[in-house]
C-alpha cells in the first residue's frame, strides 16, 4: 500500500471538515475522490500534504507516519500536490515556477531530464517559459501547475480539481495527460467535481459527502451505481 489514511478528523476552528475518513491508495493506481462542493475533497488532499493537520487519526505513506510532518518535507518524501485553483506563483515566470518546484528535489542533476519530460507533455509551456505566469490563460496555468508537480519527479501526485474552469477541449486534454502520467508509472489521487470524467479514467473511487466517506468501489461499480448516477452524473 502506498498511502493509507486511517480515521482522520480535520477541523477548521470548531467546524469539522472531515469525519473519520479512511481510505487507501495502491502503487500504480488512479484513485478518485468525488463529491459535491464543500464535501471535504480538498481538505483531504491538504491533510495528506501537511497543509492542514488531522486532529486525530493517522496518515501513512509507504508505511511511514506523515501525519505531523511539515509540508515541505512531505514534498521531499515523494508526494506532489497540485493544489486547487492551481496555486501558480503569478509574480514568477513560467520557467521560475518550474525551477522553484525543484526545491523538493535533492539530486539537481535530474532537473534537465525532468524539464524535458514536462515540456514534451506541455509544449505550450516551453513556448511561454519567459512569460510571467500571472499573465497565462487559465488552461496554461493548469498545465503549469501540473508541470510543476511533475518537475518534482515524485512517485505520487495529488491533483485537486484539474478540470476546474477549463473548456471541454482542455478538460479532455488534461485528463489525457493524467492517464499518460499514470502510464509513466506515477500513482495519482484525483479529486474532482466532474465525477463522470474522473470515473472514466480512474481505477477506483470514493464518494465524500459532508466530510464522511459514504461509498467506495471500482470506477465501474461507482459509475453503475444508481445513487451516484442521480447525484453526480446527471441522471
Amino acid at each position: 500500500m502506498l498511502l493509507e489514511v486511517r480515521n482522520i478528523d480535520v477541523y477548521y476552528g470548531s467546524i469539522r471538515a472531515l469525519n473519520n475518513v479512511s481510505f487507501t491508495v495502491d502503487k500504480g493506481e488512479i484513485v478518485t475522490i468525488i463529491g459535491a462542493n464543500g464535501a471535504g475533497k480538498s481538505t483531504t488532499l491538504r491533510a495528506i500534504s501537511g497543509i492542514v493537520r488531522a486532529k486525530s487519526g493517522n496518515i501513512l505513506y509507504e508505511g511511514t507516519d506523515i501525519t505531523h510532518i511539515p509540508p515541505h518535507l512531505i514534498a521531499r518524501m515523494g508526494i506532489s500536490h497540485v493544489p486547487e485553483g492551481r496555486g501558480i506563483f503569478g509574480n514568477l515566470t513560467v520557467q521560475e515556477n518550474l525551477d522553484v518546484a525543484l526545491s523538493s528535489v535533492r539530486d539537481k542533476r535530474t532537473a534537465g531530464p525532468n524539464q524535458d519530460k514536462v515540456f514534451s507533455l506541455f509544449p505550450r509551456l516551453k513556448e511561454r517559459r519567459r512569460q510571467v505566469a500571472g499573465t497565462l490563460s487559465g488552461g496554461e496555468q493548469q498545465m503549469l501547475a501540473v508541470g510543476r508537480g511533475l518537475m518534482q519527479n515524485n512517485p505520487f501526485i495529488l491533483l485537486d480539481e484539474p478540470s476546474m474552469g477549463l473548456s471541454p477541449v482542455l478538460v479532455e486534454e488534461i485528463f489525457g495527460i493524467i492517464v499518460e502520467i499514470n502510464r509513466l508509472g506515477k500513482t495519482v489521487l484525483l479529486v474532482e467535481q466532474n465525477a463522470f470524467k474522473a470515473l472514466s479514467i480512474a481505477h477506483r473511487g470514493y464518494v465524500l459527502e459532508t466530510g464522511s466517506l459514504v461509498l467506495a468501489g471500482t470506477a465501474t461499480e461507482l459509475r453503475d451505481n444508481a445513487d451516484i448516477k442521480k447525484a453526480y452524473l446527471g441522471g
Partner: protein
Amino acid sequence: MGEFLQQLINGIQIGSIYALIALGYTMVYGILRLINFAHADIFMVGAYMGFFLGPVMTKIFGSAFLPTIIAAMLVCGLLGFVMEKLAYRPLRYKSRLSALITALGVSMFLENFCSMPRVFSPAFLKFPDLIVARNIPIPGNLGLNVSNVLLLDVSVSVILMVLLFWFVNKTLIGKQMRAVSFDKATASLMGINIDVVISTAFIVGPALAGAGGILYGTTYGMLASPFLGTWPGIKAFIAAVLGGIGNIPGAVLGAYIMGISEAFATSVNSNLGYGIAFAILIGILLVRPSGLLGKFMPEKV
C-alpha cells in the same frame, strides 16, 4: 544650474543610503506582511560597528573601509537572524498586530539598551575616517562640490543593489523568496522550507542596512546617539511605501525620489527637509496607496 545639479547630486547620495535601508523593510514586508520597526535600529548598530571596528580593521588590514563594511554587514545580518528567531518566530501564527507591537518593542529595546554607558553610550561620537575625504575637481565653472565619499556612497549602494537583484532573480533561494511572498502554502508544497526563506530575508535586509550605517557614518562623520536610526528609518520606510512596499525595485525608486526631494526641500529650508517626507507619504496614500510600482493585493482569506 549649478545649484540645481548640486542638490540633485546630494539627493542621489542620501537616496543611496535610504535605498539600502528601504530594501530591508520591503523584503521583510513582502514575505511576512510585517513592518519591522527595529530595522532602523539595525542600521544604527551598523553605524556603531564602524565606530568600534573601524580602528581595529585599520590596524589589521591597513585600509579600513572594505573590511569594516563587510564586518558591519555580518554583524547586522546575525543580529537580524537572532531577532527574527527570538522575537518574531514565536508569534508567526498569532495575530499580525502582536508581531507589529513586538517590532516596536524590539526597536525600543535596541535603542535604549545601546544607549547604556557600557554598550554604545548615549554620547556624541566622532566617526573614524575609514577613507580620507577629498574633493574631486569637476571641470567647468558650475561650482559643483563632489567628494570621493559621495562617489563611494553611490557606488557601494549600486553594487549591493545589483548583487541583491541578482540574488533575488537568479538564485534558487531568491526565487523561493519571491514564491513565498506570493503564496506561502503553495510554496511549502514545492518543498520550500519557509523558515529558511524567512531567516534569509532577515539576514540579507539587515546586512544591507548595516552597509548603509557605515556609509552614513562615513558621510556625516559623527554618530549622534543610538537613536540616530529613527529619522533615516522613517524616511526609508516612507520610501518603501512610496515605491510600493514589498516591491524591491520600488524601494530603490522610492528611496531616490525621497533623497532628491529631501535635498531640494532642505536647500529651501531645513525644516522643510524633514516635512517633505510626510508630504510625500500623505500624497502617495491619497493618490496611489499601493505605491508607484506596487500592485493592489486584496487580503487573502
